[in-house]
């Protein structure tokens, strides 16, 4: 049995000019956990304790509840990298919860992949509570095989002085829906969403990132770098929401997209919502064909045009991966990228 749900809707529902507000995905009920409490030393928790809003939205939360997916709370071993690397082979759904206590640092890496022949849907929801002056570094690598549909959803809360760095690398493969919502509830809290993406061969990527500034002097940054080719479709929604009272806050979103040919669909909806005056919100975008000078330069060194574009594509993934704080996690992700592009 499958259920059709609406995901990644924008906060003001009126914003549907680009038809970005009624995207649905069909998700299979009966999805089983891919991550067990035992393997992660985690424990099952009551969902009511982890009611954090996410980027994909309420309908996904309701779906997971109906599916009977039980959240697992994972206690990591201090700063030591906690990684979950999964090769999916069946319809799966997980909710993983992490909490950084005051002053703690957490390093988390998730890697989702599958064999090309496997048909399955993988839903991963990550919930994060970042306590006072804590740091949470979450890195996600998504590299689905041809038959895998991925929904990656994040919800996080940052208390006073907390820092949440989320880095997502979406590689070539199949369709992906992703969302992230961060509530900056404590003064001087900071959040980053960095994304490196490649979409080709008709693949879609549907993204919804929300930064909600709820306290004074909060800083948020959404930064998307990517390359699209061959009928790829990408929707990026980036909302920076300054709630009244968040004086002195700063929110920026930037997009740097390379369109490698004319067949692609690239939709961008940056939203800066503002009920507060003394804040700074900025949106910047560089979207277009690769520079002819750069391609000529590369070709003058013997590199074919196709290879030149591939090098630039790889660079957009690495731009995000290079920002991963934990060296092991960074090397792992860069290694996978290198493998992919050397293998081609």
């Amino acid at each position, binding site marked *: 049995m499958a259920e059709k749900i609406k995901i990644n809707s924008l906060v003001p529902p009126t914003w549907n000019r680009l038809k970005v507000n009624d995207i649905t995905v069909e998700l299979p009920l009966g999805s089983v956990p891919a991550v067990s409490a035992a393997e992660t030393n985690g424990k099952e928790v009551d969902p009511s304790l982890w009611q954090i809003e996410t980027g994909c939205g309420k309908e996904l939360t309701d779906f997971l509840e109906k599916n009977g997916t039980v959240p697992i709370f994972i206690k990591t071993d201090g700063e030591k990298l906690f990684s979950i690397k999964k090769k999916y082979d069946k319809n799966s759904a997980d909710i993983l919860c992490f909490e950084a206590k005051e002053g703690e640092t957490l390093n988390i890496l998730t890697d989702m992949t599958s064999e090309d022949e496997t048909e399955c849907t993988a839903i991963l929801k990550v919930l994060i509570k970042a306590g006072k002056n804590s740091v949470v570094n979450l890195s996600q690598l998504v590299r689905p095989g041809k038959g895998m549909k991925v929904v990656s959803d994040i919800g996080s809360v940052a208390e006073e002085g907390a820092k949440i760095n989320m880095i997502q690398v979406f590689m070539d493969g199949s369709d992906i829906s992703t969302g992230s919502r961060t509530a900056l509830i404590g003064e001087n809290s900071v959040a980053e969403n960095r994304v490196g993406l490649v979409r080709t061969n008709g693949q879609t990527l549907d993204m919804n990132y929300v930064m909600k500034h709820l306290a004074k002097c909060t800083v948020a940054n959404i930064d998307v770098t990517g390359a699209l080719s061959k009928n790829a479709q990408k929707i990026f929604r980036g909302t920076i929401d300054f709630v009244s009272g968040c004086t002195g806050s700063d929110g920026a979103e930037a997009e740097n997209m390379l369109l490698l040919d004319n067949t692609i669909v690239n939709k961008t909806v940056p939203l800066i919502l503002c009920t507060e005056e003394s804040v700074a919100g900025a949106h910047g975008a560089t979207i277009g064909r690769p520079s002819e000078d750069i391609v*000529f330069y590369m*070709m003058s*060194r*013997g590199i*074919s045009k196709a290879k030149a574009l591939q*090098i630039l594509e790889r*660079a957009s993934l690495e731009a995000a991966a290079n920002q991963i704080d934990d060296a092991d996690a960074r090397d792992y992700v860069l290694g996978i990228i290198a493998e992919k592009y050397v293998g081609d």
Partner: protein
Amino acid sequence: MSQEILNIEKLCVSIGEKEILKGLDLKIGEGETHVIMGPNGAGKSTLGNTLMGKEEYEVTSGKVTFLGEDLLEMGTDERAKKGLFMTFQNPIEVPGVRVSEFIRNSCEALGNKMSLWNFKETALEQMKVLNMDPSYLDRELNLGFSGGEKKKAEIFQLLMLKPRLAILDETDSGLDVDAVRTVSEGVRVYHERVGGSLIIITHSTKILESLDVDRVHVICDGRVVAEGDRKLVDEINANGFEKYIKA
């Protein structure tokens, strides 16, 4: 003259409506070092870009043979694979692509596939010649490089790619005295080790100090207007181009 490597005959090139090269002739022999001088806007870089196959440079007539083949029929990457190379007067910044990755890909494209270890070893050896810090390998190509560093990075590529014919477009301009000497040494090492031919476009003599110059060509208004041996360089430095510029 030794075996001919490049032969340009009556080359006419336009950019848009404007004719820049107006029947230019030039012959380069294997292993020779040629110098091209000429006033600003004469068409020197246009010649380089045309030989490298830049799109907006339209060849309206004339012929270019490189190693016995019609160069103008080839795509830019094919020309490089045949052994043609140009240092850019204004090297391009390539964000996100490390120097090492860029050059390794180039070497591979030119048929010199190296293991990472091998590549590094070769690269460090060439960087030593150029007094370049090994850390440049990990930097994004030309991004945030100073003018002089960009020029050095071009010569580094020359040493790594070992072309049959290299066009150096004002590689010496914007360099401090020591850097010119280093770059000049790099060019000398290339010439000695690889035995390739050189077309050196320059406004000064410093870069020529450690090189044997076979021939000097003066380009004015899209044509070669004077040719001679090394002494021509000194004469131009003393008297300027005035006598070559037609009224």
